[in-house]
């Protein structure tokens, strides 16, 4: 055993058993580090598709043993060219389950727990059990959701510094054809997904009237069938992009439309591409991006090297171009920012609280609307909501927030900036004085 183990970790040992030039100040080389990595590091891989398959394999081969993988999809025949853990006989089975099984078969000692469900189906606490979350996703919504969850564990001390033990590191990979990115998100230290959401170009959306009246491209014909014709014919039935019958119907209609206008180029795969926003995936791009992500995950866990700061882009479409850019945090980010710490007496009413916001030197916020974890405590407008939330004004904020000793609320209203009234949206960390659970202000955080 010793011999096979030694040969298996030979490359890893070069990083973990000796000190390199770029190690973190706390790095302690040795076999204990390698053992601890195997025993204590728990990593969640989100997505078991093109990137997810690669990530699971890479992480398992890099010394991580406790892995979980979550994916809601089943294997399709078109996945097989690049999602190399799957075989023809697996078509129709859950990706997470097959991927976990295949990696465990090949890599002894790996313990991979699959979760065949939507990421939203898991309780928030599920995600807190992992030390690092690695993302192999293809949608903004899913990234935004996981980012929100991971940042919700983040707490700040009374000086607005992040408390290290509450940081949930994320490593995010993404690919589109020959292009890809890998980034490290340390909430509270490096920009979170929401800080830089503007990086993502908006989706191309064709004007409906162009689709209806003057189609010029194959994509116009497909979107006509998908957005207009489908509803005309199917009325109540919602279009399901994962239903092959639906997709075939849209394709057939798009072909008719294209013939009518003499437009070439409508194919079944283009139809899938336009409707599902799919760009053909390239196996090698996934492999490269996943390798970068797995390495960053290893670096975060062991500090055998500094982590990348903080966003790598890769473009292999003409030659090869790759670079790392350092993006900035948005200090007022509603998701990962510290917000403003406010200490309150539990007896303070919502009306009194709003008066305090006007006087608060850091806020000077008037006409406040207040929301707490999805509950709207007070709304200035429209009249219908103002009326519904007005009775809350005379109630204690502490009671309205479910008698929690501390939590985050969001307020928006008007504030002054250079003598001009501007509207703003702020995050506040409320702590209630003398309530059980808060003994010192340094534990007053939450996100």
């Amino acid at each position, binding site marked *: 055993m010793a011999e096979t183990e030694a040969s298996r970790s030979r490359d890893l040992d070069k990083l973990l058993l000796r000190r390199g030039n770029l190690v973190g100040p706390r790095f302690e080389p040795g076999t204990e580090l390698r053992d601890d990595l195997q025993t204590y590091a728990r990593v969640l891989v989100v997505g078991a598709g093109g990137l997810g398959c690669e990530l699971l394999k890479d992480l398992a081969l890099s010394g991580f043993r406790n892995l979980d993988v979550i994916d809601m999809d089943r294997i399709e025949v078109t996945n097989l060219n690049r999602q190399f853990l799957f075989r023809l006989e697996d078509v129709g089975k859950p990706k997470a389950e097959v991927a976990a099984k295949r990696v465990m078969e090949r890599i002894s000692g790996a313990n991979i727990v699959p979760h065949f469900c939507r990421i939203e189906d898991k309780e928030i606490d599920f995600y807190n059990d992992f030390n690092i979350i690695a993302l192999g996703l293809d949608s903004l919504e899913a990234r935004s959701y996981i980012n929100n969850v991971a940042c919700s564990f983040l707490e700040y001390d009374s000086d607005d510094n992040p408390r290290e033990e509450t940081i949930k590191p994320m490593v995010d990979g993404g690919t589109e054809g020959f*292009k890809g990115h890998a980034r490290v998100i340390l909430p509270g230290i490096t920009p979170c997904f929401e800080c830089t959401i503007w990086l993502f170009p908006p989706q191309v*959306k064709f*004007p409906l009237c162009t689709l209806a009246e003057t189609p010029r491209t194959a994509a116009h014909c497909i979107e006509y069938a998908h957005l207009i014709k489908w509803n005309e014919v199917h009325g109540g039935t919602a279009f399901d992009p994962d239903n092959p019958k639906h997709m075939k119907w849209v394709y057939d209609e798009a072909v008719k439309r294209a013939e009518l206008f003499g437009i070439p180029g409508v194919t079944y795969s283009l139809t899938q591409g336009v409707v599902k926003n799919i760009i053909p995936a390239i196996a090698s791009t996934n492999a490269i991006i996943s390798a970068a992500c797995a390495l960053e995950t290893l670096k975060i866990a062991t500090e055998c090297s500094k982590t990348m700061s903080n966003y790598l882009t890769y473009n292999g479409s003409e030659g090869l171009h790759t670079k790392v850019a350092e993006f900035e945090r948005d200090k007022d980010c509603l998701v990962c920012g510290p917000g403003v710490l406010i200490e309150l007496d539990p007896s303070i009413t919502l009306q009194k609280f709003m008066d305090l916001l006007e006087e608060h030197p850091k806020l000077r916020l008037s006409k406040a609307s207040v929301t707490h*974890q999805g509950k709207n405590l007070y*709304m*200035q407008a*429209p009249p219908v909501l103002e009326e519904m939330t007005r009775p809350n004004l005379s109630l204690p904020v502490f009671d309205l927030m479910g008698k929690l000793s501390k939590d985050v609320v969001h307020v928006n209203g008007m504030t002054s900036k250079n003598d001009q009234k501007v509207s703003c949206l702020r995050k506040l960390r409320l702590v209630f004085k003398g309530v059980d659970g808060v003994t010192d202000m340094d534990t007053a955080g939450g996100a």
Partner: protein
Amino acid sequence: MMGEGLSEGKGERHGRVMFGGGKRKENNGDFEREKRELKSLLLLLLGFIAELPKPKPPTKLCSSIIIISLSFLCVFFSTRTMIKLFKVKEKQRELAENANGGAPIKKQSAGELRLHKDISELNLPKSCAIQFPNGKDDLMNFEVTIRPDDGYYLGGTFLFSFNVSPIYPHEAPKVKCKTKVYHPNIDLEGNVCLNILREDWKPVLNINTVIYGLYHLFTEPNYEDPLNHDAAAVLRDNPKLFESNVRRAMAGGYVGQTFFARCM
């Protein structure tokens, strides 16, 4: 997936609501002023073309290096490596395994928070009303009623449903017209042709601007962006007939082969 900055507005030729590209526009002004501004902007619906100002490319990369390295230093002052931290946490986790944690709290998405701001700053004219069928805590799904006080559609009542995504305002709200209407820019399934709902949506726009945009579809229907081809042709060729068709449809009756329920 790639960060290449915002892409450019496309050269589609059709009506468009134009907004100053850079700064977010505050909408605490009165409706009349908004209306005038929009009206001039909405020259749009007559096929006005202009280029959107080009968004500035991101240029703030390097200045953050110092800040970030400083914060890294802070982290490294702590004596435990991440893996030691994991070790401690794992022990804690085993201990806490059977202890019941607090009830999981639903986290608000950034989209919900931004929408909360949009809604609490709504400044609607008397002709527009908003309803929340799922109560005060579901802002992501709501309805807007428009009763035009001018133009062909005076006296009618038109209901729109709004569905807002968790990544709002990166993505425009999805809007459908629930009232069957004889209108050149709204088809019989309720699809609405309004540029700011699709190709010209920008995150600086908000729910207020969308509602104004819808309102203007009724005061200034536009035959150059047809979604209902027949209605557009009639409006272009015979405005008098168009007017009587609209009255007939709103009163409840047939226009051609199509029946419209009364909406007055």
